[in-house]
């Protein structure tokens, strides 16, 4: 019996079309900055200051997203090769190499148009040390303003008041003046606060969508499906009306699936039967995204919760922009609470909670070769989650955008053996 059945066109994500249109508009605006005079900020996803960028009337470019899309469009191998030809080492983060390669080959964005150079390099140094090295490389290529926002690591599980104040102070004294200088526009804090409150509306709907996976069967895949869902809120759109509209539509769609007892939509149709509910830690592979996904949906696996979809904010755990009255402290709270800025024990706690709250049958770690921020310590985390939940976990390895480190056969073998083991446990 096939694991999926055809999805009616009405069920196909309307929200997906909406997202595509938003992205197309964004890239179009980026391609026109010479004429419009709009300024451009390059920045990273975790701890991003999108609302600040929008308040300054600027446009955001997210190098990780470029890398991810290059991976999905099968361009990353070329770009990585180019970066290695320039002397970049095989051992380092492949997002960085992909971006450097793309830059060297003309900086053509996903819509085929050249991306404009940045007017501001906004290094929001959250959750990954390599971001800093990446920006050091970019600053050699561009002669523009640089703003560094140091986000301290929440090493003891909880951010401290000193950390919040430190971030707010940097924003006030260093980052905002750079924005004002580049944009020529004085920042209106009330308007920023209002924008943050708008972000929260979308965050509320996204959280509802992610939490819908608690239902059986789950109407969503909280990993392969959710990487699309988090797109707008993790990047340039948070705080805007488009974003609110997108999440409202998404919620409606998911609600309708839920009412009809429908499972998640996969590339081959709607999942017919939910056989396994899994939690996943780590980013997916982008170069073989569909093949990777297929390994799971063919076996009736639904991911009910994932940590990767929290790198741009832990909205499902209650964080909301604008909940704190002072907008700068609100941004500080956001930066501090992104997933990769959590300590390993806090990451383990979260995984344990996901396994329990989402009634998962098991959990899987996808360890990414080039991402030490995620992968260093994952083996210890895995054992700890096993110990606490009494459920065995699985460990697979791949890479984000370097196809040399993706092996369909190996991963498939491992996943199949793991699922067999879960099946046996269930019968026992």
């Amino acid at each position, binding site marked *: 019996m096939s694991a999926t059945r055809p999805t009616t066109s009405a069920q196909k994500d309307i929200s997906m079309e909406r997202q595509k249109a938003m992205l197309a508009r964004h890239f179009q605006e980026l391609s026109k900055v010479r004429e419009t005079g709009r300024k451009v900020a390059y920045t990273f996803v975790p701890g991003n200051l999108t609302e600040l960028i929008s308040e300054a009337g600027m446009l955001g470019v997210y190098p990780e997203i470029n890398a991810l899309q290059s991976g999905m469009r099968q361009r990353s191998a070329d770009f990585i090769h180019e970066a290695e030809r*320039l*002397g*970049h*080492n095989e*051992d*380092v*983060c492949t997002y*960085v190499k992909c971006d450097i390669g793309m830059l060297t080959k003309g900086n053509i964005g996903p819509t085929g148009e050249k991306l404009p150079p940045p007017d501001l390099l906004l290094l929001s*140094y959250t959750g*990954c*040390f*390599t971001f*800093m*090295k*990446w920006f*050091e*490389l970019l*600053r*050699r290529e561009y002669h523009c303003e640089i703003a*560094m*926002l*140091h986000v*301290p*690591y929440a*090493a*003891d599980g909880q951010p401290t008041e*000193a*950390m919040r104040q*430190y971030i707010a*102070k*940097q924003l006030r*004294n*260093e980052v905002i003046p750079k924005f004002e200088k580049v944009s020529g526009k004085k920042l209106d804090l009330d308007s920023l606060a209002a924008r943050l409150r708008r972000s929260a509306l979308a965050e509320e709907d996204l959280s509802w969508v992610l939490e819908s996976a608690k239902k059986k069967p789950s109407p969503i895949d909280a990993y392969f499906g959710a990487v699309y869902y988090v797109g707008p809120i993790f990047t340039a759109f948070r705080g805007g009306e488009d974003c609110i509209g997108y999440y409202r539509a998404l919620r409606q769609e998911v609600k309708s699936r839920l009412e009809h007892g429908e499972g998640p939509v996969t590339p081959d149709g709607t999942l017919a039967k939910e056989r396994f509910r899994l939690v996943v830690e780590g980013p997916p592979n982008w170069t073989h995204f569909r093949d990777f996904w297929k390994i799971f949906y063919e076996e009736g696996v639904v991911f009910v919760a994932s940590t990767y979809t929290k790198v741009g904010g832990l909205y499902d755990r209650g964080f909301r922009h604008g909940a704190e009255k002072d907008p700068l402290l609100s941004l500080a709270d956001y930066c501090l609470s992104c997933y990769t800025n959590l*300590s*390993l*024990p806090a*990451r*383990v706690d979260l995984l344990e909670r996901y396994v329990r709250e989402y009634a998962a049958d098991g959990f899987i770690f996808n*360890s990414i*070769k*080039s991402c*030490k*921020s995620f*992968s*260093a*310590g*994952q*083996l*210890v*985390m895995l054992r*700890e989650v096993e110990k606490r939940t009494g459920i065995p976990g699985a460990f697979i*390895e791949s890479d984000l955008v370097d196809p040399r480190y993706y092996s369909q056969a190996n991963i498939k073998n491992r996943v199949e053996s793991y699922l067999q083991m879960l099946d046996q446990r269930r019968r026992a």
Partner: protein
Amino acid sequence: MSAEQELERLLDRCERIYGDVALEEVKAWKAAHPGRPAIGHLPVYVPREVIHAAGALPVALQGGGDQVDIVRGDACFQSYICHLPRSTVELGLQGELDLLEGLVFPSTCDVIRNLSGIWQLLFQGKYVRYLDLPQALNDTGGLFYLEDLEGLMNDVAARANQKPDKAAVAASIRLYNRNRRALQLLYELRAEAPQLVAADEAFLVARAGGQMEVSAHSDLVETFVSLARKRNRRKEDRIRVVAIGAFCEQPPLGLLRTLERSGCYVVDDDLNLGARWIQGDVEPGDFPLKALSKAYLVQSTWASVRFEDEQFRGDQLVARVKALRADGVIFAAPSFCDPALLDQPPLQKALTDANLPFISFKYAENTGQFQGFREQAGTFSDSLKLWGTT
């Protein structure tokens, strides 16, 4: 005892400390200082003055080198993580670090950062402190760091049953100033007359400080330098190189020896960088912790793990190579070390633009085969000697 015998004795002691994963030196210190704790810290930079002033012995943990068989450490890390964390965890699981009352993890990289969490998970109840060195290199960053230092000071002082004391911090700063000056002398002597101080000797002498009381180490370095000056060693026909990239996981001794046997004098390196991080003396003034915080902002050496603010590292490397009259650069970095490896292309470009030759290779702290390095370094040296270029 002749100067050479004295040097031999001293170097033997340093090599013993280097190879002593059971931290006998620290045990001896603790026996002599009952009730006082020893606090370990990971590379690269931790202001040891603060731990010292709080009444504890700061102990630099630099991995297990090639002396530790990794049994359980490998089960904690994938093959694509550098070697230092796995040997450190191995030592922890073997109980070799039990004598340390706590560990400080500076914000060196994602691996050390996550290692702090591994420690929290594997060694519950142990004091673990993450030290977030400021990447915002301004007053705001300085103030945040100062509060972090106060926290570290209070924590360690509580474990040593002492009251945090300004005068003690000032006194410690002075002791460490002397230590930095002594290490500076050692490096100057090597740059000036590399035949008098071999690369492995400088490494061992500097590294011994990681487990010793600071004054005792300063004595040791000063004695070494004054004895080494008296050596009667002929300068050989070797090229002068600067070795870059080994600031965290340290290469095995055999690798350093191989480099010099292959026709190179290593006239400068970034081994044991943490001990030489602050450039020049720190003036304790009336607020010594503040002085340390300020020193981090304005007196830090350039390093791959610190935000590159105003000056490009490549320019600084070129300036250093020229000032040392070095013939070239050897990039020697641990495998899978993002900070060191991501820095290489821009550094190499700066060298190329300045017409300075270089070679590069990767190692692990437990690398056992040096043939490849010997050939590479030998060819580098031969071609520079013969043609002045590679």
